[in-house]
């Protein structure tokens, strides 16, 4: 195994809405090429953490580093540059409903590259083919199924060849087979593009299938109570809450 390079470092992070603290004292490191899982029960602040990592919400305290650049301490210009190096798949795809799939994928290319229309068409066709949607260029998001919408969202997230891909609940609302296929796709993209992948999820099957590093956020203590490889977490975490979460409560029999 080659040596691990830290890609995203979170230091002493506290997130809050006004005075209401959601999570505090978060410290973890995501390595280049990791598939990093952010997990925890409903309402523990997983999605808020994601919003901070992608630049939608500022943390109340603490810092986030991308390649040693302080994300929230940087100027707005620098932050935007960093944001172009990330791709995000939102929970239900978040495709722009007034545009076709091709136009959805083309928009970031049109805005941030100097490609001409023909080149953009080729890249769009490639991205849609990668997610298994070849030929669906002219469909509107409302005309395709939820799983296809998610894959189209992934094509859009990959439009600018991001170094970091974020997934918010990728398997939510998908049948087990589609969810498995999406997991395989995530693995394939990590392996072939070398991207770092951050996934917010509480699907156990996905956590064990794709994750090689993780952080567990706890609602009651408002901080992280475990981190590392999810398989090790399940077998040897000293915390009962983590054990119960990762085994669906099966160890907790009365």
């Amino acid at each position, binding site marked *: 195994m080659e040596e691990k390079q830290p890609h995203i470092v979170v230091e002493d992070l506290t997130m809050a809405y006004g005075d209401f603290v959601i999570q505090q004292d978060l410290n973890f490191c995501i390595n280049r090429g990791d598939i990093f899982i952010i997990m925890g029960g409903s309402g523990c602040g997983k999605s808020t953490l994601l919003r901070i990592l992608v630049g939608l919400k500022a943390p109340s305290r603490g810092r986030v580093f991308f390649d040693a650049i302080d994300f929230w301490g940087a100027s707005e210009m620098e932050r935007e*540059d960093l944001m172009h*190096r990330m791709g995000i798949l939102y929970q239900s795809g978040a495709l*722009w*409903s*007034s545009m076709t799939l091709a136009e959805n994928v083309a928009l970031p290319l049109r805005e941030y*590259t*100097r*490609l001409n229309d023909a*080149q953009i068409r*080729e*890249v769009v*066709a*490639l*991205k849609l*083919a*990668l997610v*298994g*949607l*070849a*030929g*669906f*260029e*002219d*469909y*509107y*998001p*409302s005309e395709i199924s939820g799983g296809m919408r998610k894959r189209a969202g992934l094509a859009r997230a990959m439009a600018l*060849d991001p170094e970091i891909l974020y997934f918010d609940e990728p398997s939510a609302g998908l049948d087990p087979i589609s969810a498995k296929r999406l997991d395989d*796709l995530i693995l*394939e993209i990590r*392996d*072939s*593009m*070398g991207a770092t992948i951050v996934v917010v999820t509480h699907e156990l099957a996905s956590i064990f299938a794709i994750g090689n590093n993780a952080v567990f956020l706890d609602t009651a203590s408002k901080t992280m109570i475990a981190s590392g490889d999810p398989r090790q977490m399940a077998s040897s975490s000293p915390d009962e809450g983590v054990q119960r979460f990762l085994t669906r409560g099966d160890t907790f029999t009365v």
Partner: protein
Amino acid sequence: MRDPAGSASCHVDHKADGLAEIRFEGDWRIHADLPSFADLVRRIESLRPAAGITFDSRELKAWDSGFLTFLRKLMVHCQSKQIAVQVEGLPEGARRLLQLATAVPERQGARREARRTGWLARLGGSTIAYIAATKDMLAFLGEVVTALGRLVTGRARFPYRDFGVLVQDCGARALPIVSLISVLVGLILAFVGAVQLQMFGAQIYVANLVGLGMAREMGAMMAAVIMAGRTGAAFAAQLGTMQVNEEIDALATLGISPIEFLVLPRMLALVLMMPLLCLYANLMGIAGGFIVGVGMLDLPFKQYLVQTQNAVALNHFMVGLVKSAIFGVIVALAGCLRGMQSGRSATAVGGAATSAVVTGIIYIVVADAIITVICDILGV
């Protein structure tokens, strides 16, 4: 910042046994200047590689989608010319991605052909669509009337708490904008009249003009137009968003009629509040005329008041009030109908709101014309 793009190049070398080797060098990322695909094709054709093509990417520094789209074009070209391609020399990631891109074959019949239709077909299509839309509108009207029947006989599920909020929103909250517009309309009527009437020394008849104009026409009309823009659009957007979130389906599956639960309270709130708003608009409009009459034409305060009282009898107000109640029904129906018909996307909700306002205003003007003609025939 990303590193500045380097230069990319590719060379075709003739190898033994009829093989051609394509050598990729430099930075093949999407923001670099990539070599021309047509040149490469020309060089391949000049070599006529009978045994196929191999790749050498040892000098390839960096690559991304730019490289992949180039390779994909090459693959398609080679397939059409039946040239064998050995992909072993490509970077592993690129090989896997190319494989992934062909893993799911294009579904037959998924791609859409642009179809051209003649004007006759389009005319026919829009006529059929228009007939269908009219049927929908009548069906909706019928449902509302039967729901109203159930409400009157006490068999409808009516959300009394929501109704209070709706009444407040259609009534008290609309007062500021109605005040502003009505005073201005009163002022405008008085100005236009004053210029003409002054020529005959008949300034005092400004009071008649403003009083009658507001009471019979403008009070009801302006209140209705304001409410179409303000409340009709809001109804359409609310119901449309509920449609997007499947809230309307949730009501229907519980056995609660969306018409009774959502449309009736909105319609009743607007029908109850509209005459009150109209009355208020009349008052404000007459006050606007009064400002011009007393302030600009120097008519005595008392005289203007008496002239207005004599000119505008109660039946004139009644005409305005009846109109405004009918306009209320129109605005509420247009808003709710478009909201219920809305599709499940952001664009569709926007379209529903626009269409609610347009439909509302068109039918208000048409209804106003019809009522005016009827009043003329009846001599009211």
